[in-house]
């Protein structure tokens, strides 16, 4: 297993799947000649040529529709959103075409498309470029939604997303592209969609978190360890389908749960996870599930305000303490 960056892991997944299946092609803004605004598609134009690595004008709805149409008749497009913020312009295509065509046609047509790109806050990109976009997708029947936190997951999950016969929304993070980690180079290394993973074993409380928040939770765990509080960290990896069994299983063991999400929170991923944990493990809970979310505000530009908007290690630590002392122990 080689140690490579998250960016390289994605690049490998794309290259391997393009080699494996001639129906796979890439389409999006600046992915070819420019090799990707974030260089995820580096070298692919040279290797596969302009028919399979297609640079587009700025027309998100148009080229996403092109991907969906091509998928209906047998191709397997991987559409890049330069950043997922721009997917709002293509949302009707994703929700009303990609997600519904299989159902509306009674199964005659399916749409094997992957829509990928970075989402979530980065560094001082302000309100229009820092949105946690998964919330627009995971409630839509007919879509699968992935948020990979590590280089290995990025590769294994992107490969299964490309092999999946249905629309998959695959949201990366600009802040993780440079992250390094061990990544299997086996050509058939894939991670099935819909399987959460326990990132860290623990006794006293379960923290559910993904992407940057998962790393904050890890830092919080170190800190809490010193206080003798041992937390288990579960990373859903796939938000839809959601692996509630693994999450609930962990909570049944620890009896306490904290859900962390970078987004603004209201009716977000944390709400859903808190709700199903409570439904399925009510009698095992020693404290109400705590939600740690981003402040409910657009993302400000100023560095200090941006920092204040995003859930911090400290906020996670406090929430864990609350659930642990909530039962008076």
């Amino acid at each position: 297993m080689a140690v490579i960056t998250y960016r390289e892991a994605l690049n490998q997944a794309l290259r391997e799947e393009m080699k494996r299946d001639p129906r796979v092609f890439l389409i999006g803004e600046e992915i070819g000649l420019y090799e990707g605004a974030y260089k995820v598609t580096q070298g692919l134009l040279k290797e596969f040529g302009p028919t399979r690595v297609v640079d587009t004008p700025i027309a998100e709805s148009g080229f996403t529709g092109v991907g969906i149409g091509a998928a209906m008749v047998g191709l397997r497009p991987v559409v890049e959103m330069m950043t997922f913020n721009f997917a709002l312009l293509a949302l009707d295509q994703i929700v009303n075409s990609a997600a519904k065509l299989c159902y509306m046609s009674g199964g005659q047509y399916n749409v094997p498309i992957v829509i990928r790109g970075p989402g979530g806050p980065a560094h001082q990109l302000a309100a229009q470029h820092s949105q946690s976009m998964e919330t627009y997708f995971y409630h839509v029947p007919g879509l699968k939604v992935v948020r990979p936190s590590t280089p290995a997951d990025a590769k294994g999950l992107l490969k299964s997303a490309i092999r999946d016969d249905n629309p998959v929304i695959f949201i990366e993070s600009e802040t993780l592209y440079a992250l390094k980690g061990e990544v299997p180079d086996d050509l058939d290394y894939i991670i099935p969609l819909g399987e959460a993973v326990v990132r860290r074993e623990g006794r006293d409380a379960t923290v559910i978190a993904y992407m940057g928040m998962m790393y904050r939770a890890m830092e919080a765990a170190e800190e809490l360890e010193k206080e003798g509080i041992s937390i288990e960290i579960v990373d859903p990896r796939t938000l839809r389908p959601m692996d509630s069994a693994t999450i609930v299983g962990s909570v049944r063991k620890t009896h306490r749960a904290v859900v962390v999400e970078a987004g603004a929170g209201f009716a977000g991923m944390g709400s859903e996870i808190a709700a199903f944990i409570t439904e399925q493990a009510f009698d095992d809970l020693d404290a109400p599930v705590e939600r740690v979310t981003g402040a409910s505000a657009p993302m400000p530009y100023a560095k200090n305000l941006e920092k204040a908007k995003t859930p911090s290690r400290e906020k996670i630590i406090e929430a864990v303490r609350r659930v642990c002392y909530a039962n008076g122990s």
Partner: protein
Amino acid sequence: MAQKTTSPRAASKGNGGRPSPDIDGELARKLLYDMMMIRRFEEKAAEAYALGKIGGFLHLSIGEEAVAVGVTSVLRTEDYAISTYREHGHCLVKGSDPRRMMAELFGRRDGLSKGKGGSMHLFDKTVNFLGGHAIVGAHLPLAAGVGFAIKYQGGDQVCVCYFGDGAVPEGEFHEAMNLSALWKLPVVYVCENNRYAMGTSLERALAQTEIWKFGQAYNIPCEPVDGMDVLAVREVTARAVERARAEKTPSLIEARTYRFRGHSMRDPAGAVYRTKEEVEREKQRDPIVLFRERALGAGLLTEADVRTLEKEVNDRIDDAVAFADASAEPPADWLLTDIFKES
């Protein structure tokens, strides 16, 4: 280069000139049969709607049959067609089975989409009919994608994309035109300009009411055609399809037609936004009557032929209605199937 290329001959036909030499009795029969079949299918659908056997929205294309038939008459089965919610005719003449279509309108298990789609969402993979889309403008980029796939796969099929005048002000019209022209995709965009988008007339929707002229902005071949003249539509489409097959050149055709009924069954008269006189005047250009008279006049068909065709059509559609009526509702557990394709 983009230019208005309607030949005088094609134009003159619009004024009831003779069918061109390439029309023989068999083709005349086929064109008339197809137009009559669409008309009958929709008349029966309207009856079923009145009886509550069809629900939701039902949009009829009565008066516009010459577009679907003229266009489809130059297509092959392996060619693709994609359309709006006013797609019964497009789907039917592409070769779909009226029985399964009617069953879909009835919301029954034997419908094309197992009853899950309804009138607005007809799909038939066996004849490459790609639907049945009810978000105005949204299927134009899909058509470009189909054209992209044809080119990618090295095929020589074309994709015909039907849309209404109401889709032209939508951003996706512009995006699809630009991408198709920029990438030279084998797509024939056929605007069924019936002069109204629900209650909004062309003049109230577009700064440019000569829709075909938008094609000039993208440097693609574009022309208007009399959409009530099945032969004119056939000729114009034949040119566009040939360009698409041979050179992968997209085209924009503006077929000038008229809907005799309201926008949907919920707008029966369609009289708030247009005058009775206008509707009556347009009905004088009934594409079926026009073509039947010309075919009779040219001796391509006899009165007897026409009566036979009528009988065949009526029997076929009656049978379709009976089939739909006899089909059961979809089983309850189908609610949760087909959301995803299970690999």
